[in-house]
């Protein structure tokens, strides 16, 4: 395939100042056992080529499922036609990149596509069975998903590389209803669970069946739990909720295309300006955030991004001070950087690369285990597992709901509260960060539903977190 892509690019007209071609072949499988029955067995395969080029200052991208010489040539011609139909615009520079060559593959132990379908369903049946038993439990789900993506990329800058990723994820969830009250409980995370760039061993490691009785018991208990009362409290965020907090209020805010207003009409802008890099105090000295596309197991891990830029580890915030942003070749050049942050990613062959998160993580602190952190807290709330989320288009004003809230009194967990929620303003919230748990509590959370771009792209990203404590947070807002 690389030869085909290279051949087509060699035929690009001279008026193309840059061109790239990307072949993507994706295999996916999604399984769902619901209320005692197999509800979904979906297996999909798709492949095709996307050609992106620049001509006369305008960009054009065309995607085709015809991965043949003639098909890709037609896509190139179509991309050229739409680039040249755009109103004239000055051609901004691209930062240089060392040509990508070679092959990269993620590490995994057991290929999920080699595991018999019957074995996967048996695991899900066992987990879902352990969720059932109470008539107030109106829906019990056990689901898993597997994905393989093979990519070949070539560019007129000399890139010619291939990559292969394998991803796995799983989740169990319960919806309990009693009259007008509805509560949800999930494990290991909400919204489809947690996925990783890993093999079937990742799913087995969740011990879904072992966790199911606790999950369903908590859902039932929540139905009659008191509401989370409003007020200003110290909160400890569990790892999964902290992952989404970082995703929404740091990751998206530090996308350089948003700072440059390129996403103003859809995803939004950012409260952070390019001129803030190197100076802005984003949070307390406990806040250390890193974008790392080299992490083992991350959904944002790769050999090269979708512009052929090698994976990198970049500190974004150090001791609370903003150091860098997430960028691609064009955005980096626009603010005078000498290299891309390697964050150009595309969702499949029919979408073009845009600035995306890789694995944006908070570095572990020294607060010990979650138990240690709770023991160190006189009065507060422990909030776990996201239930709802919303943030403004500048990534400044957020509101989250969690499945579970628990009181903390004198260093111990107390009552279970339902409808936990909190709201805040990004820099004020992060200025209240006063403790992050130690490396033993740090783990990656894989989110598979990050939407951005037009036409829409769903990206998979990971966030490494350890539970953390934040002071003076408005809670009980919904």
């Amino acid at each position: 395939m690389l030869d085909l892509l290279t051949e087509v690019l060699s035929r690009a007209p001279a008026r193309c100042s840059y061109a790239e071609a990307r072949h993507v072949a994706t295999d996916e499988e999604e399984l769902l056992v619901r209320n005692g029955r197999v509800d979904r067995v979906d297996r999909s395969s798709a492949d095709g080529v996307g050609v992106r080029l620049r001509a006369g200052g305008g960009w054009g991208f065309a995607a085709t499922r015809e991965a043949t010489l003639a098909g890709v040539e037609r896509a190139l011609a179509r991309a050229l036609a739409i680039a040249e139909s755009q109103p004239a615009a000055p051609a901004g520079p691209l930062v240089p990149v060392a040509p990508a060559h070679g092959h990269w593959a993620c590490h995994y132990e057991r290929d999920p596509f080699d595991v018999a379908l019957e074995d996967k369903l048996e695991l899900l049946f066992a987990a879902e069975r352990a969720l059932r038993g109470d008539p107030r439990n109106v829906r019990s789900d056990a689901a898993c998903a597997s994905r393989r993506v093979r990519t070949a990329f070539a560019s007129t800058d000399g890139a010619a590389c291939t990559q292969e990723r394998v991803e796995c994820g799983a989740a169990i969830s319960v919806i309990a209803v009693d009259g007008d009250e509805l509560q949800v409980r999930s494990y290991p995370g909400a919204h489809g669970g947690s996925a990783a760039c890993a093999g079937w061993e990742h799913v087995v490691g969740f011990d879904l069946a072992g966790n199911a009785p606790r999950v369903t018991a908590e859902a039932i208990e929540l139905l009659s739990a008191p509401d989370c009362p409003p007020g200003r409290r110290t909160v400890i965020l569990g790892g999964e909720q902290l992952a989404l907090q970082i995703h929404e209020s740091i990751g998206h805010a530090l996308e350089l295309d948003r700072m440059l207003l390129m996403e103003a009409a859809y995803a939004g802008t950012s409260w952070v300006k390019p001129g803030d890099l190197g100076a802005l105090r984003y949070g307390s000295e406990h806040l250390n955030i890193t974008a790392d596309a080299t992490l083992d197991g991350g959904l944002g891990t790769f050999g090269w991004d979708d512009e052929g830029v090698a994976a990198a580890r970049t500190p974004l915030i150090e001791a609370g001070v903003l150091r860098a942003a997430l960028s691609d070749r064009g955005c980096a050049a626009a603010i005078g950087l000498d290299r891309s942050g390697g964050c150009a990613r595309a969702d499949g062959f029919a979408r073009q690369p845009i600035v995306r998160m890789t694995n944006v993580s908070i570095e572990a602190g020294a607060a010990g285990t979650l138990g240690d952190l709770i023991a160190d807290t006189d009065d507060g709330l422990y909030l776990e597992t996201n239930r709802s989320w919303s943030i403004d288009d500048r990534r400044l004003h957020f509101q989250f709901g969690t499945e579970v809230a628990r009181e903390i009194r004198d260093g111990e967990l107390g009552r279970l509260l339902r409808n936990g929620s909190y709201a805040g303003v990004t820099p004020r919230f992060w200025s209240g960060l006063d403790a992050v748990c130690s490396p033993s509590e740090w783990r990656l959370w894989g989110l598979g539903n990050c939407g951005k771009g037009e036409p829409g792209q769903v990206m998979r990203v990971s966030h490494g977190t350890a539970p953390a404590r934040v002071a003076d947070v408005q809670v009980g807002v919904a």
Partner: protein
Amino acid sequence: MSETPLQTAERALGLADAADVQVTVVRERSLMSRFARSAPTQATAVDDTSVEILVVHEGHTALASTNRLDDDALRATAQRARAAARAAAAGGAGTYPGLAEPATAPAHDGFDEETARLDPARAGDALRATFAIAAEHGLEAFGAWTAGAVRTAIASSTGSRLDEEVTDGFMKVVCRDASGRSGYASDTATAAGAIDPSMLARRAASKVSTEPLAELGPGCYPVVLEPEAVGVLLELLGDLAFNGMSHVEGRGALSGRLGTPVAGPAIDLADDPLSAGTLPRGVDFEGVAKAPLRLIAGGVARHVVHDLGSAALAGGDARSTGHAIAPGGSPYGPSPWNLVLGGGAAADVAELCAPIERGIYVTRLWYVNTVREKETLLTGMTREGTFLIEDGTIARPLRDVRFTDSVLRLLEATEALTSERRLVSEGEFYGRRFAHASLCPALRADGFRVTGATTSS
């Protein structure tokens, strides 16, 4: 001449080697041009065809898909679906009632030949016109123009043979000044040529005010919602209240409430997939013919929507209403995607504002998400055109606010609606392109619950 989607579906059906099979072929051709700071940024052309083979076995469904159209690929895809359906059935009988009987797709006006040509020059012209209007106002333009042609064919072992082609156009414009003040306008239609970029740019520009920003703290205020804001709320209500599967499982906002008042008497909400004022569709993804369905009439909840699976779970005389959003039904259940809210007597938004002493005018809502499902409690932000209403008129721009409120409560507190309605859409095209939109008036409601105001940083 290349094979049509229906011919591909029939060929795949012949290769499937199973008793109960539905083949769905979707060909998408689309163009999308984005712009920012009055310059083009990204332009995307997509040409893709997907083949989904659904096999039903002992009450279970399994779906396999490919975008390779040769016989070997189609055979292999069908084999994957067969194997998956057998594996699913090993756990016991399922509840899927079987494939739909053959239907005739009702006629509609959802296709426009000129739009289907997908001429990139039209996108370029739209952007140029927009940039010119923005420049006249000393503003920069941001947004997107897109057009698509989607042909869907279904062939099944029960004899269904359906072939439907629809087109859609969508454009949105955000005009923005150097300080960050911005205004929004959008339009969608079956025919891209029916969208007027200059008019949208003027409408967006008219919302950019240099007056000092007013602020409102948390509290409940009278509100006037433009059609775009109403559409976002209704789309979420569609899933929370009218999803037949949620309803049957007791999770729905209308579970136990059909036949009772759930909104103000002025509220008439329907799903009207054949109306020329919407983006029409004749059949759903299970091959069931669509028809208008009253959801709320005179404020009283009347119906929820069903696909084949949710109707079977509901039992009794429940039947699919033609709202399957995936072959075999989606795990999320059915959804109404052609919502139509009846208009009222107000001539325009000025008339809606007239009785308000102090309230909020909302152009658009953003990042709206569900807080509590059964209460239809949502939270989200206002964006790009929020104003303070004082003494019956729009007085000055207002800092954007966060709201946390129930859609059904807002509909219950609705006092007036405009007679004029707009077809509104978010223009989001994730995955396979499926354009859908809601036909909405602007409305005035009491007690819009503001739970937070924005600050500069």
